[in-house]
């Protein structure tokens, strides 16, 4: 018809899809996720590219941001406030070990929670499984983590601190942190669609979280039970202490790590169930 596009003759009819109301705590259409793997990869690629490739300095921002934070922390906590550090670990090495995991956690929760609202047209105009959006947002932040971890190795080795066999614990700890941020992202991103307050609360919440987590300071041995409870209730405490143990052989956080892992799994399950329930009619709330 003069538009110059060929349409092939109809292929044999494909599989039958049954559309009906579903319910329950398991996300619908989980089995289809594999079929959407290319969309997933392209969403991850887009998130990374949009964040850095289009800016003038490109990937230099990925290095610059943790570096700038490190300089500020070093000045504030090591010169102005004089935080005590175990052993003889130089403050920049100590701080950067916690900072690389914090950068991942905070950014993953932030971008993951905002992801669905930012991609709302995918929700309201296409049938792509919605759960791909927060997962892709979380995965894209792993690149930021890799860059800040690389920065840690460069700076730590310049101070004479080299990785040991404990490095093998870094991937499982990242996986634990990922499970935690994904669980939080699933819960918050589904809630954000309906209640825009989440957007306001996010930045505030993350700032608070930073101060109750031992990113830039050393956790004092808890004296009172209330402190123990606060530390045990924040899964990031156990994860950061374990992460620092893996990189710098600081004391291992046995009990706190167990608490952190239990909480992580709990948060993940709550997040998945919340998202599964919202996902079915997410487009109606948008």
């Amino acid at each position, binding site marked *: 018809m003069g538009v110059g596009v060929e349409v092939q003759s109809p292929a044999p009819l494909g599989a039958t899809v049954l559309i*009906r109301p579903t319910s329950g705590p398991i996300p619908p259409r989980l089995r289809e996720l594999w079929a959407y793997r290319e*969309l997933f990869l392209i969403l991850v690629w887009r998130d990374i590219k949009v964040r850095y490739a289009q800016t003038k300095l490109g990937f230099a921002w990925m290095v610059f941001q943790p570096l700038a934070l490190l300089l500020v922390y070093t000045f504030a906590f090591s010169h102005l406030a004089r935080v005590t550090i175990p052993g003889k670990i130089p403050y920049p090495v100590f701080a950067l070990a916690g900072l690389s995991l914090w950068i991942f956690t905070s950014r993953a929760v932030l971008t993951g929670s905002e992801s669905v609202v930012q991609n709302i*047209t995918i929700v309201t105009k296409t049938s792509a499984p919605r759960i791909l959006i927060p997962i892709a947002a979380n995965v894209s932040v792993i690149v930021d983590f890799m860059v800040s971890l690389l920065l840690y190795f460069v700076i730590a080795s310049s101070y004479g601190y080299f990785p040991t066999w404990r490095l093998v614990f870094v991937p499982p700890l990242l996986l634990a942190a990922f499970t935690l941020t994904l669980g939080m992202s699933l819960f918050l991103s589904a809630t954000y669609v309906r209640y825009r307050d989440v957007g306001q609360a996010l930045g505030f919440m993350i700032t608070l979280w930073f101060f109750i987590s031992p990113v830039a300071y050393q956790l004092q041995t808890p004296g009172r039970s209330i402190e123990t409870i606060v530390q045990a209730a924040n899964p990031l405490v156990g994860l950061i202490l374990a992460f620092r143990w893996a990189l710098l052989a600081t004391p291992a956080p046995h009990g706190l790590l167990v608490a952190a892992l239990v909480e992580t799994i709990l948060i993940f399950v709550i997040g998945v169930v919340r998202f599964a329930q919202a996902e079915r009619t997410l487009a109606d709330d948008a």
Partner: protein
Amino acid sequence: MPEPVVVSASGLSKCYRIWTHSRPTSLSDRVDHLISAIRHPGRSEASERPRKETIWALHDVSLEVRRGEVLGVIGPNGAGKSTLLSILARITEPTGGSAEVRGRVSSLLEVGTGFHPELSGRDNIFLNGAILGMSRREVEEKYDEIVDFSGVRDFIDMPVKRYSSGMYLRLGFAVAAHLDPEILLLDEVLAVGDRAFQEKCLARIGEIVHAGRAVIFVSHDVASVARLCDRGVVLNSGRVAFDGAIDQAVAAYLASTPLGVDDNAAIEREGTGELRVETISITSAEGPGVVIPDRAAEIRVDFRGSRGIRSEPLRLEVGIHSTQGGMYVLLSTDFDPSRPLDASELGGATVVCHVPDLPLKPGKYTVSATLQRAGGEIVDRVFDKGLFVILPTDYFGSGVLAGENHRAPMLVRHRWDVEPRIEEMVDARVSGAAG
């Protein structure tokens, strides 16, 4: 042998829980409601307190579509057209009932879904292709065709935020046009772009149809539905009011359309909405909704709007559309600069357009209205309103009624004459003498 059924819906229902008055979209709204409920416990039953109400957007809808069929779904705003499409496209789940869909489905509810302004045209082709369900290999194979179809090859490496809106739409449609679905779900996408672009889109959809695919097309542009589809379903208040041949469906729909603008329609209409078209009516000496081609008529557009709207010049365009397809007449305040419209005077006012005659073929017509700012931003736009009929009349004074069987859309008065041409007469005389 009849073609196989590819879409079969049985008893589809969709229920929305909506808030009467304002729906709380933030926690503070909820807190406010809670506080007012505590402060005025006696008023808790009062109507001003928002309550959740159950609205059935779709109620027990059953239909079947066979391969090669083009089904148009029409109905007034809020009838459930888009809800039906959203369920079949698996954008939202039904509340009840079920549907079976056999084959690869592409839903085209928007052009350029997921386009990222910072990414280049090339990147967005791959992104949009993936979002619409194409594999990377498929997009790579069709990449050149897509770029050629879009006509933006020179700008393909430029971020789409620098594209004009026309380029953006063309690129978006180019990707969608290369989907290879067995079942295509279409929603109003044709209402965008310039005329030439719309023609291109329609032609492309025609190709998909001729390749034996099933298409479900939802629109409130009755004209394009009538042109594209062979079967029509009329939805009304979430129920199937008619299912049959497209011209009967269009007639059934128009017959049920009230002359005024449906107030509940706010959801589907376009525009920023400070001023709203309340009713459109067309009247003549013959009465409301009835026009004779060679007599004067008035098109009246009533506006509703809050007081104290800032003064600024506005443009009102009124289109007269045939129910057979196409806009036949465009009336604009731009064409009569003697009475410019100002936003501050329109709320609660009626704008009247006086037409000395309306020489169109007798039949049913609808009116659309678009209220725009000087910069082109749409304040309000409504379609398919103010249904009226043009009655057959002896327009040409020939003693024969120009009726609905007139074969062209316009009536133009004319006079015939025969003039001899001098040179031909000379030639004839010369050849006559020679013979």
